[in-house]
């Protein structure tokens, strides 16, 4: 029976009035046709039933088109995943359309589900099960990013993906926090750090706190053990992230500036601990605002409790907190009034933390005698900017406490750095040491998985047999360096002290440079004798003399930027006979020493390590970008380089050239350090990559970028002369001389 006939035949039994009004005109026919298709597709009864129930509401909420589009989407899910999942999807359609509100948003949500069902059918159900929560926390864009991260992280592993989307993986929760806000800890970190240092003159190590448990846990800032931890996001403060982070950090700053030694827990009950903490919060805020009155504008907006309402413990706490901060807040509860009175009376001892303990004890006792219930287990400090108070108390360490840092190695190093960072000799400007404390602190506990690359560019490659340059042939992926040694610089300085000192001398000498004498100048420090005599002769013979009679001295100008390209292909793992170290370790040292020298000269330098695994995976590791300062992180990245894969040198040169092209320097140099000829797994013709590399060098030369190669090892069988031209490379047989040679060579070239 044709669909139209069916609609006509049984209008009142099949189609309810609500459905009719939701699908006016011919769309009703379409709805019925869609329904019919779902019924006949053999998905069971649940799918068409859910469709029948959801579609009218969806149609009313986000439009008929969206409602009708549900059917093919459900069909797709039923086929790829399961009919059950499709039914879940349809049941969710109404709440989601209500949530998202616009046809566009709803459509892209459906698209997201469809794209997930295509890529990872097993993960759709766990995602749908949390759809509302995820939308609440992430919003549509955040959700997209989160889903994509999950797909990337899970890769081809079905179980891993499922774990991710059911939030069983820690990484999934961490990323959830990360995407849960327009501004996150990550995006605000450096601003917060600088702001905190400005306000308080110091910056304790700052970390992103790990999520506590599944999904919803409301995390607070914390400052136990000298380390400040801020949540990756504050839920419920969308759009106000910056203020809540600033407020939280300012609050902790106040604790650190005005707090005393930690309180002893002693016989105190949880309720008293909470009240003492609350008073202490108010006390340090009071002191901070006395110093910096503007902080009240930062803190007060978060106190939004009303003066009335049920006298529950959380409400009373919030009221007391507000009343202590906000003199205009009406007090309508005896307990709050008592707290404020005691606080005001104690104002003379405001500098003494014992005041908090005294008031808190009494107030806690008072509250304990009333019927007000306090549940310590689910008590969360309010308002959101205040810390969890753990830093205030001398608490016994929890035996089962999860480690708060991924990398303890870094953590201990931080502490050491923080202790010394304020010592006067380190305060000196412009020294590499200076960068230590700022640099190290930026190490967050979260690191990108070293095994996943991020596509950063597509580069052409030259095929000499065809004589054409294939556009977008090579995919460049950026990888994070492996875990490195935070003490790299330290060790290098110990091991190579003499060399570093000598290079320091060389740098000093080189930077003076040689000045050139400029003759016949319009102005200058002295008369140019030849020109003066000529001018005098002309004057006396009645002619007009040349005005350019002075001589000057030109200042040697330095304007050079270098992109150092390190070949870290598998062969660099080989040991060097003489030195007893591997090629890659010599590379590390040589680049570190060069970076050190260039940093002192103030010349821009980038260090990129490369290797390749076929044309789809030119693996680059940014050890130091041009804009990065030389910090311990650079050392860690250097020591974190791991040898592996092959050498697709042409592509790497193009990549380095592209980066260098943006640097406004007179001379730009790509310095390649490699230990072998180009090769890669997907290329059998040995000429192909060599010719491509040659072409890359030529094209860089044409755009004014020099390429110089340092070829390590014996010359036999290497083709560097061919690629880099005879003057464009240096053969270095004695590899252990590399750390000495590299800076010396640079200084010679940079002159």
């Amino acid at each position, binding site marked *: 029976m044709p669909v139209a006939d069916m609609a006509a035949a049984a209008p009142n039994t099949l189609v309810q009035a609500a459905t009719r009004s939701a699908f006016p005109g011919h769309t009703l026919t379409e709805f019925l046709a869609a329904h019919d298709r779902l019924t006949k597709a053999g998905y069971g009864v649940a799918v068409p039933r859910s469709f029948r129930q959801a579609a009218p509401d969806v149609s009313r909420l986000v439009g008929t088109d969206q409602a009708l589009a549900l059917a093919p989407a459900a069909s797709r899910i039923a086929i790829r995943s399961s009919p059950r999942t499709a039914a879940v999807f349809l049941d969710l359609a109404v709440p989601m359309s209500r949530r998202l509100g616009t046809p566009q948003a709803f459509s892209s949500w459906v698209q997201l589900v469809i794209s997930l069902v295509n890529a990872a059918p097993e993960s759709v159900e766990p995602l749908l099960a949390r759809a509302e929560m995820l939308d609440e926390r992430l919003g549509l864009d955040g959700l997209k990013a989160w889903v994509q991260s999950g797909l990337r992280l899970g890769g081809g592993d079905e179980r891993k993906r499922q774990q991710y989307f059911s939030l069983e993986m820690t990484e999934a929760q961490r990323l959830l926090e990360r995407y849960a806000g327009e501004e996150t800890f990550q995006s605000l970190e*450096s*601003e917060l*750090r*600088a*702001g*905190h*240092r*400005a*306000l*308080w*003159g*110091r*910056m304790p190590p700052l970390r992103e706190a790990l999520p506590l448990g599944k999904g919803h846990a409301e995390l607070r800032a914390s400052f136990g053990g000298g380390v400040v931890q801020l949540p990756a996001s504050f839920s419920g403060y969308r759009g106000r992230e910056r203020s809540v982070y*600033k407020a939280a950090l*300012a609050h902790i700053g106040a604790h650190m500036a005005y707090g005393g030694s930690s309180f002893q827990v002693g016989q105190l009950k949880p309720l008293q601990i909470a009240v003492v903490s609350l008073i202490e919060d108010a006390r340090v805020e009071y002191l901070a605002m006395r*110093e*910096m*009155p*503007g*902080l009240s*504008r*930062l803190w007060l907006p978060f106190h939004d409790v009303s003066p009335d309402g049920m006298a529950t413990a959380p409400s009373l706490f919030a009221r007391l907190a507000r009343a202590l901060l906000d003199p205009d807040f009406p007090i309508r509860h005896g307990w709050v009034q008592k707290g404020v009175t005691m606080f005001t009376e104690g104002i003379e001892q405001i500098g003494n933390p014992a005041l908090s303990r005294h008031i808190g004890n009494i107030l806690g006792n008072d509250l304990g005698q009333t019927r007000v219930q306090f549940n310590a287990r689910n008590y969360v400090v309010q308002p959101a900017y205040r810390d969890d108070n753990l830093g205030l108390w001398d608490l016994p360490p929890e035996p089962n406490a999860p480690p708060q840092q991924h990398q303890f190695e870094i953590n201990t190093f931080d502490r050491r750095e923080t202790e010394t960072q304020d010592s006067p000799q380190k*305060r000196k*400007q*412009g*020294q590499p040491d*200076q960068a230590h404390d*700022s640099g190290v602190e930026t190490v967050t506990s979260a690191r990108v998985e070293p095994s996943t690359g991020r596509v950063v560019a597509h580069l052409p490659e030259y095929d000499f047999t065809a004589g054409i340059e294939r556009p977008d042939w090579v995919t460049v992926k950026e990888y994070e360096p492996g875990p490195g040694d935070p003490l790299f610089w330290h060790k290098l300085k110990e091991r190579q002290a003499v060399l570093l000192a000598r290079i320091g001398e060389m740098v*000093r000498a080189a*930077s003076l440079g040689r000045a050139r004498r400029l003759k016949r100048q319009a102005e*200058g*420090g*002295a*008369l140019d004798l030849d020109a*003066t005599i000529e*001018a*005098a002769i002309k*004057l006396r013979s009645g002619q007009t*003399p040349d005005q350019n*009679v002075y001589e*000057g*001295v030109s*200042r040697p100008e330095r304007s050079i930027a270098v992109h150092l390209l390190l070949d870290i292909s598998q062969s660099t793992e080989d040991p060097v006979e003489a030195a007893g170290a591997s090629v890659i370790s010599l590379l590390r040292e040589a680049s570190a020493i060069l970076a050190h020298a260039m940093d*002192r*000269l*103030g010349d821009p330098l980038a260090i990129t390590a490369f290797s390749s695994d076929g044309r789809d995976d030119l693996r680059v590791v940014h050890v130091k970008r041009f804009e990065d300062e030389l910090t311990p992180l650079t050392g860690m990245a250097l020591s974190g380089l791991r040898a592996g894969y092959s050498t697709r040198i042409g592509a790497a040169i193009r990549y380095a050239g592209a980066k260098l092209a943006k640097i406004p320097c007179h001379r730009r140099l790509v310095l390649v350090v490699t230990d072998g000829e180009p090769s890669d797994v997907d290329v059998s013709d040995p000429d192909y990559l060599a010719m491509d590399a040659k072409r890359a060098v030529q094209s860089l030369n044409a755009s004014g970028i020099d390429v110089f190669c340092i070829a390590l090892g014996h010359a036999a069988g290497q083709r560097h002369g061919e690629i880099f031209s005879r003057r464009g490379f240096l053969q270095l047989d004695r590899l252990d001389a590399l750390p000495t040679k590299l800076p010396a060579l640079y200084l010679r070239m940079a002159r």
Partner: protein
Amino acid sequence: MTTSPLLDAYRLTEEPKWHPTGEEVAQFTAAYSVRLPVMLKGPTGCGKTRFVEHMASRLDRPLVTVSCHEDMTASDLVGRYLLGPDGTIWQDGPLTLAVRHGGICYLDEIVEARQDTTVIIHALTDDRRILPLEKKGELVRAHPDFQLVISYNPGYQSVLKDLKESTKQRFCALDFDYPVAEIETSIVASEADIPTSTAAVLVKIGEKSRNLRGQGLSEGASTRMLIHTGRLMQQGLTLPEACRLAMITPITDDPDMRAALEAAVDACS
């Protein structure tokens, strides 16, 4: 001994105000009375130049100031031959002028000048007190009233810019820094003609910005900047506006640093 009228143009007509922060006036006077060269160290805008002006005026000496820069040659200091209609004419440089006629010569930010330029002051700053004019073949003996003062900001110079050891060791040195809050407040208040309470807020902001020294800012806001901010407020700008105009925007382009300074202004006001 009187000074030649040639230097009259360099005399300060009015004594610049100076708020003492320590014993610097007495110390400088002592150094001057035995004509020892003096080096003033300190961050930019903390009052080094003002102090020299004040002292010159107090000691009733003309003050010849030279702002040193990278391109400065020895000739820019001692003088040079110029080509006139009838041949060459020798023109004394500012240093020679002060040496000949007995003024205080103030070389501001001396490390900016190249090291080979600064060695010409060596013979002037030990007990010889002579200035050889190589080009002219003349040996100028310093006027008994002549004194050399140099200033130098140890902060933002790179390792490559430092005084030679042989230069350093010829000088007495006075350390300058931004004054303590109380004194700085009174300086800002009187120089900018604003109420002390406002000046105190400005000084507090200044202190906060100095916390960022070496942590993203090469220098914090100087006393001079605070005074400028105060003057702008005197013109009717609000505190945040004035701070932005005279302090935050000039001092850095880094958005994080700006945000941090804005936060400091916000917190203190």
